[in-house]
């Protein structure tokens, strides 16, 4: 059961107003950013962070809101990226034309994964999706069969261990020349904003409520008429579309995609983002991205201890703040509100934070 009190019947609840205010501030910041940041490196890292935030928000939709612990998130992302790259590489399509078909391919792939997981719960889903992602990685890396000859070089169908490169870009280089990175930043920022808006709509819609109900108490939700199969496939499909689309944009932005995105550490980074930010909170993935990318940059100084630090951050944040930073912030706001003994302690953050389900499991 979530803590969401029945949203006030007034035209716009307080939480929605706060969310809107946060979004407006963020949009203003996003527009101001390219004028404030000169360094190419920093802007490049910000673009990368936006990709992470997009993937994390979709994983959060899957795990945080629907309770499906899928470890195939990066596989879906890679599928989108590979599909886009392969459309361009083999058929000579323009990148922009290939993006949506690539994302739809990722949706299809995700639906197959979802079908395989349909009758499973909890850890079984995690194990199966992990196995699927690893199989995909292994099959790509060990692919040595010649598919086409490019010049005198043999190319594998999946690009093998090297992957694909130079299949086209977003066209910003030709259009903006030296400022192409700003153009790419704008495109990816819009992608992220669209993803968040769509996710918000889903989470607040009856479908989103059905997802949450299935997470909190599957038996009760099914008894009340929620179709579990339908809802589970739907969430797999929806989250895959934006993940796959992000994959396509990722491939186009870096003009390359390889099996590296399927590595365990990438997946862990996404999970860490959501866990640190706050599982099942709308702003959690964004907060987690900011914190972890910053931490990652700081740890870059200490070079080799990066992965070690990341692992410890994940473990510690689960132990110390099971509801993530957003959840902790919500606790704080709640506590302050209670201290003031205001009758309405309903704040934006606590509204989307979930208290542990009291029953079920």
């Amino acid at each position, binding site marked *: 059961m979530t803590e969401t009190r029945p949203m006030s019947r007034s035209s716009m609840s307080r939480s929605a107003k706060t969310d809107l205010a946060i979004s407006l501030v963020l949009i203003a910041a996003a527009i101001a950013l390219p004028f404030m940041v000169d360094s190419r490196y920093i802007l490049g890292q910000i673009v990368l962070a936006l990709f992470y935030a997009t993937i994390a928000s979709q994983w959060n939709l899957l795990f945080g809101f629907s309770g499906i*612990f899928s470890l195939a998130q990066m596989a879906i992302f890679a599928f989108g990226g590979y599909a886009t790259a392969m459309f361009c590489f083999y058929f000579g399509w323009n990148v922009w034309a290939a993006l949506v078909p690539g994302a739809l391919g990722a949706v299809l792939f995700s639906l197959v994964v979802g079908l395989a997981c349909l009758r499973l719960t909890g850890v079984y889903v995690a194990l199966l999706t992990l*196995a699927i992602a690893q*199989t995909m990685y292994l*099959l790509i890396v060990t692919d040595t069969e010649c598919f086409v000859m490019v010049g005198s070089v043999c190319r594998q169908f999946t690009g093998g261990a090297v992957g694909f490169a130079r299949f086209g870009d977003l066209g910003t280089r030709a259009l903006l020349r030296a400022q192409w990175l700003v153009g790419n930043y704008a495109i990816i920022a819009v992608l992220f904003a669209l993803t968040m808006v769509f996710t918000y709509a889903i989470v607040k819609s009856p479908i989103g409520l059905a997802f949450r109900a299935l997470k909190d108490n599957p038996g009760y939700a099914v008894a009340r008429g929620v179709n579990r199969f339908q809802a589970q496939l739907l969430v797999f499909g929806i989250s895959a579309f934006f993940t796959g689309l992000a994959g396509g944009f990722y491939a186009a932005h870096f003009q390359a995609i390889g099996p590296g995105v399927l590595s365990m550490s990438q997946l862990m980074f996404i999970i860490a983002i959501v866990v640190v930010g706050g*599982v099942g909170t709308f702003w959690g993935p964004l907060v987690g991205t900011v914190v972890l990318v910053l931490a990652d940059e700081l740890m870059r100084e200490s070079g080799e201890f990066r992965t070690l630090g990341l*692992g410890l951050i994940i473990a510690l944040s*689960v132990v110390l703040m*099971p509801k993530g930073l957003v959840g902790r912030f919500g606790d704080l706001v709640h506590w302050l509100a209670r201290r003031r003994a205001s009758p309405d302690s309903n704040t934006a953050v606590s509204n989307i934070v979930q208290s542990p389900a009291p029953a079920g499991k």
Partner: protein
Amino acid sequence: MTDVLMAILVAGFTSGALYALATVGLSLVWGSMGMLNMAHAAMLTLGGYVAFTVITSLGLPIALGFAGAIVAGAVAGAILYFAIVRNLLKNDKSTFEANVMIATVGIGIALENAILLTYGGQPLKQPVSIAGTFRLGPLTLPWQNLMIIAVVVVMMVVVSLALGRTRMGRAIRATAQNRDAAQLMGVAVNRVYLQVLMLSGALAGICGVMVSSMTQLSPPLGNDPMLKAFIMCVVAGLGNLPGAVAAALGLALLESFVQYALGARWGFPSLLFVVIAVLIWRPSGLFGRAEIRRM
């Protein structure tokens, strides 16, 4: 033809024995505490490296290397309990399953990376190996594989005796059946959890030594056996020990046949297809108890 068949069988049984050891370690923890230990792979690796250090760097006999691996695994399990599991158990029960999985993922990465930083990334040779082959009529069996199978069988017997005959084992089984009832009957459930994690860590340590003696020591050593152990757990149904052993042997034999027939890269995907087929047919595994959930 018989030579090839024999080679496949030997390879299949050897890897099956190794997978069985890894699977039992995972399944034990799942069965008694409902915890999926994602750090199991790193504990495997830890065991391999500790044995290497004890034997090569300290120059001690091989038996002490094994002992070192067992102790290191058990200590890692105990640390895991005190640092993570105990704290997570204090929270709401319904969040434990997912939280502990994420936390152990973090511990696993940190441990693997710590090993990488300590020993470096280059592969090392595990000194626990026996050269030569054993002839039995027309059959040629490498001593190495026989040793592995023997050690695994001994470990299985030890585990089943520990679970079946000792007071500790009875407490573990009681907790696995019904945690609340066991607690009400006076079983110190928290101590059982500690014991199970240490036992599983010790098994992982030995398994790591054996796996590295077949290949080489490298920091991601444990990942491949653990991934396969996951699959076997799913096929058998998590928490069922005899089922886990049977599934491990069966799937390892299948894997080595497929690898021979279709090439090495199809070994793992074929396992995955089996899993999906099994899960569609029986969602809680071949031998897993169908869970009855009370609302």
